[in-house]
């Protein structure tokens, strides 16, 4: 048994009783990484010396707290001062950040120890982590399958027991989909809940950082530590922090669940449907009730998302020009040529494809037909959610239409790859919170249940997820590695 099979409160109790030390926790992490990361390939960069020093200091300091002394992995699009941050792109192959992201500062205050940076799709563009320019992360449940993406390293590292938890980011499903594929718990908070300062921007109106953990309670603890308004992110919301973990009451009596018929429709595998229906029965048994509803504009989510996210990306990624940081091409004839060569050599295909799509959608003569149109449809999608939440407390469906696919299976087919996110994208477009919790297996691969809440109502989402988790055993299963 690994130390990381224990929940955070158990780990803290073991520390308190001096059964283990903080250096033991960090040691457990690096031992596991040494043993299996050659297969899983979740980490891009390790920070072993600093982590071990920090562990010693924390042990001696006598500091306490639910997260204190616990090792964490951080997605490589979150900047860490003095620790190489690449966003899995060649254009940032040597980037050494000069400040910490706000979430990294908050983690330090809470006493977590960053052991390293986690692999992802380049600039978070992808659903399989195959778009990393460094390595392909593999699913701990079956090394021939993808871990999902873009936070594939974040989900795989937790599933493989390399770290007890990690941070990911979610623009169209990039926390929830890999959490589902790897059998762990992943939360995308309400847009604005967590500061994006220091998150390398992909689509600024959709991006949100969130926690990936082995269980719901730990997830609630980790989110609590990173929320809050931030003067460095004007889109961070000034809403009071809440104790999500203290509100895990175990009670869902009278809870009204909406199940969108679009989430159990075409393209969703039979086993996924059955696992969701079984989950609803579990929640009914706990006193909740559910009804079928409609989110009529769901099917337009993917198209809306690719136009908006790519447009925002084409603007955000203009900063990677070879001038101030990162890779610079050699033998350029002039400045424009330098930009063009640097970007052509530094970006991978999917990133180029999205920059071009976004540039096209924003270009003169096409702006109204594509970009503005997508913004209008976004309004309709957001309203679908508002209408349902007038009468229901949460929305429940699958996280993904199918379990994890094979490495290489759909990488050459962008549209099929995009369809993976059909059930997660609308949540980002509406800005509401959503979690994925393990809810079964299909062909030996984990499935995820998605629970979606009202704006800033993570509390209810966690409560429902926790009741479901406690009534089932799926989260106790571990991959054999």
């Amino acid at each position, binding site marked *: 048994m690994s130390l990381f099979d224990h929940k955070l409160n158990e780990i803290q109790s073991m520390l308190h009783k001096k059964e283990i030390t903080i250096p033991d926790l960090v040691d457990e992490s690096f031992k596991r990484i040494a043993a299996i990361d050659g297969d899983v390939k979740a980490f891009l960069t390790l920070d072993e010396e600093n982590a071990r020093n920090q562990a010693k200091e924390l042990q001696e300091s006598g500091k306490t707290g639910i997260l204190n002394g616990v090792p964490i992995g951080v997605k490589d699009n979150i900047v860490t001062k003095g620790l190489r941050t690449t966003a899995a792109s060649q254009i940032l192959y040597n980037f050494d950040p*000069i*400040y910490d992201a706000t979430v990294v500062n908050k983690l330090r205050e809470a006493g977590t120890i960053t052991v390293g940076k986690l692999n992802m799709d380049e600039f978070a563009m992808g659903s399989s982590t195959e778009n990393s320019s460094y390595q392909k992360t593999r699913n701990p449940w079956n090394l021939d399958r993808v871990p999902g993406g873009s936070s594939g390293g974040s989900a795989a590292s937790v599933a493989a027991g390399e770290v007890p938890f990690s941070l990911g980011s979610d623009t169209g499903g990039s926390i929830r989909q890999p959490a589902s594929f790897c059998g762990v718990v992943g939360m995308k908070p309400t847009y*604005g809940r967590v500061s994006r300062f220091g998150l390398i921007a992909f689509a600024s109106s959709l991006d949100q950082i969130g926690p990936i953990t082995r269980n719901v309670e730990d997830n609630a603890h980790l989110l609590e530590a990173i929320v809050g308004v931030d003067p460095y992110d004007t889109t961070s919301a000034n809403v009071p922090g809440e104790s999500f973990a203290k509100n895990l009451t175990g009670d869902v009596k009278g809870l009204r669940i909406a199940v969108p018929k679009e989430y159990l429709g075409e393209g969703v595998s039979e086993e996924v449907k059955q696992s969701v229906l079984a989950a609803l029965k579990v929640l009914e048994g706990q006193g909740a009730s559910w009804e079928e509803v409609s989110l009529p504009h769901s099917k337009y989510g993917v198209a809306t998302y690719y136009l908006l996210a790519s447009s925002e990306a*084409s603007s955000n990624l203009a900063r990677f020009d070879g001038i*101030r940081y990162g890779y610079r091409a050699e033998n350029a004839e002039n400045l424009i040529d330098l930009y063009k060569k640097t970007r052509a050599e530094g970006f991978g295909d999917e990133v*180029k494809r999205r920059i071009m799509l976004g540039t096209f959608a924003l270009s003169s003569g096409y702006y109204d037909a594509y970009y503005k149109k997508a913004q*209008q449809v976004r309004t309709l999608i957001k309203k679908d959610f508002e209408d349902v939440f007038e009468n229901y407390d949460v929305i429940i469906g699958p996280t993904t239409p199918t379990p994890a696919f094979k490495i290489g299976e759909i990488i050459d087919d962008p549209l099929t790859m995009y369809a993976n996110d059909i059930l997660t994208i609308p949540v980002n477009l509406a800005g509401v919170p959503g979690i994925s919790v393990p809810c079964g297996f299909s062909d030996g691969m984990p499935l995820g249940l998605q629970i979606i809440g009202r704006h800033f109502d993570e509390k209810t989402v966690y409560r429902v997820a926790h009741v479901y988790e406690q009534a089932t055993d799926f989260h106790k299963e571990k991959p054999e590695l």
Partner: protein
Amino acid sequence: MTRISEEQVRHVAHLARLAVTDEEVHKFTEQLDAIITFAEQLNELDTSNVKPTSHVFNMKNVLREDKSELGLDREDVLKNAPDQQDGQIRVPSIIE
């Protein structure tokens, strides 16, 4: 009907400051055409009276107090610059 031509792809690549080979132009034209054709399903919806959403909450003009603060240290800022001289970032000549 194709939505986007190779010529347009070359123009977009120029706007996006991306050097592209002939082979890439061919591939991106096909792929972007498929994605744009897919995106045109949005035209099934009448949005003539729908306001666009650029941000999910109605936040406007988030301002801080107008007082000076220290910025980043110059040495730190230059640390990641690929080419520099005399405390400044060096780029190819931009004036003939």
